[in-house]
């Protein structure tokens, strides 16, 4: 999201702009019949009411516009709000739809859409048939061996071990559900909010947004333990989970 660097340079500023990335469900529309949309959305919400309650949502009109199907953005927004969701953005809309959205206080997100289906929702989505992990998550099911290097532009989830001499890098978070013996670098593009989660910490090196610790710096209390690692005041904090 956008950053603004204009700051009041008097004494300690009362505010600060920071850039962060959020994972938000995207509602990709394939039909323009608002009655059907309302019905199907209601069904989805009913399946996981807790998940959808007050959940932010971006709606994506790219598919519709590809097929020249128009939709009343005001009407759509009304339905989404009625079902307890909070629309926070429009994506893939045409000029008129974007204008309409802005009038309703809904920001316009840049048009490029990942070719994803309606399954592009949060991974903890309890709904069984759309268990698909969000498009920005890279999932590795086999062991990452010594000498291998894996780079993920979003989150990285590894369901096996990471051997000594292997290197895993992610712009987002890293999860390792096996022994982590290699190097793990999260937030490699500077995301200081990124975290590393692992079920058995034996890493050669851990790093978040360039702040790193080597194996020697890890004390015995955290070694071989399930931990999470995050950044606090430019210092890596290792905490058991």
């Amino acid at each position, binding site marked *: 999201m956008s950053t603004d660097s204009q700051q009041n340079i008097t004494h300690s500023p009362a505010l600060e702009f920071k850039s962060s990335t959020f994972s938000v469900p995207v509602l990709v529309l394939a039909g323009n019949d608002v009655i059907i949309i309302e019905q199907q959305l209601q069904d989805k919400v009913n399946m996981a009411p807790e998940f959808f309650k007050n959940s932010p949502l971006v709606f994506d009109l790219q598919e519709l516009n590809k097929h020249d199907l128009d939709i009343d953005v005001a009407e759509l927004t009304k339905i989404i709000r009625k079902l307890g969701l909070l629309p926070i953005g429009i994506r893939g809309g045409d000029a008129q739809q974007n204008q309409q959205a802005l009038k309703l206080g809904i920001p316009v997100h840049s048009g490029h859409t990942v070719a994803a289906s309606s399954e592009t929702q949060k991974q903890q989505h309890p709904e069984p048939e759309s268990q698909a992990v969000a498009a920005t998550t890279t999932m590795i099911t086999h062991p*990452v061996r*010594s000498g291998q290097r894996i780079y993920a532009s979003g989150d990285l989830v590894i369901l096996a071990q990471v*051997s000594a001499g292997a290197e895993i890098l992610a712009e987002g978070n890293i999860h390792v559900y096996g022994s982590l013996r290699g190097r793990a670098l999260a937030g490699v593009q500077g995301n200081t909010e990124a975290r590393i989660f692992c079920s058995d910490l034996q890493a050669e090196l851990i790093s978040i947004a360039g702040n790193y610790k080597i194996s020697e710096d890890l004390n015995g209390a955290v070694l071989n333990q399930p931990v999470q690692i995050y950044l606090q005041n430019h210092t890596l904090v290792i905490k058991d989970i």
Partner: protein
Amino acid sequence: MARIIVVTSGKGGVGKTTTSAAIAMGLAKKGHKTAVIDFDVGLRNLDLIMGCERRVVYDFVNVINGEATLNQALIRDKNCNLLYILPASQTRDKDALSQEGVGKILDELKKDFKYIVCDSPAGIEKGAHLAMYFADDAFIVTNPEVSSVRDSDRMLGILSSKSRRAEQNEEPIREYLLLSRYSPDRVKLGEMLSVDDVQEILSLHLLGVIPESKSVLNASNSGTPVILDEKSDAGQAYADIVARYLGEDKPHRFIDEKKGLFGKFFGSK
């Protein structure tokens, strides 16, 4: 359907050639027509271990270059007539091998043989790469010490990313762990990694443990694969490995220390 087995390790001196010779002989003895190929061009050893060094006329590189046919180069083993050896060239280096040439030879062998065992050279360079590239199964030979284990791990990474099966998105190579030169006594003293330690690092299916044994050196010096020495523990270990590979259910042996005479009388500690 023929299967190509690569015997590899990354590290040198762990027992790849000994293993290649033993399992090729074991498979042939079980009635499967088997070929064993020495990929260590320039450092030819397999012929010595197989005891056919005085019968080498043509070699692997000659066949690749079209200077000899495969049948001219294959040497029939004197102990088992279902086993054939394709020796490496001693006067050339690994650059004499090409992916296309190796692929062609393997395709031709696949028509006639049930198992093709590729004895990989050490390292991860061209020779080792070509030895594993076409494999269906991989026998990872590892010694119970940290550098060997790490090199094996590296090799496993290469198998899963740079082999033909990986490149063509086919079912991955089946990987098996062979832990060689294992000495339970030294494990107990803490001088050697245990089977469990190695398993934990590599998380790999254990096909068998080969104990450190004098019979291996004797077998190498006399040019008979150690598996033919049925009285030796190493020979039996390889026989078990071949049987397990072929689907037989054999309990693992040679993992626990041998009890000496006193141990038997007084019980082990």
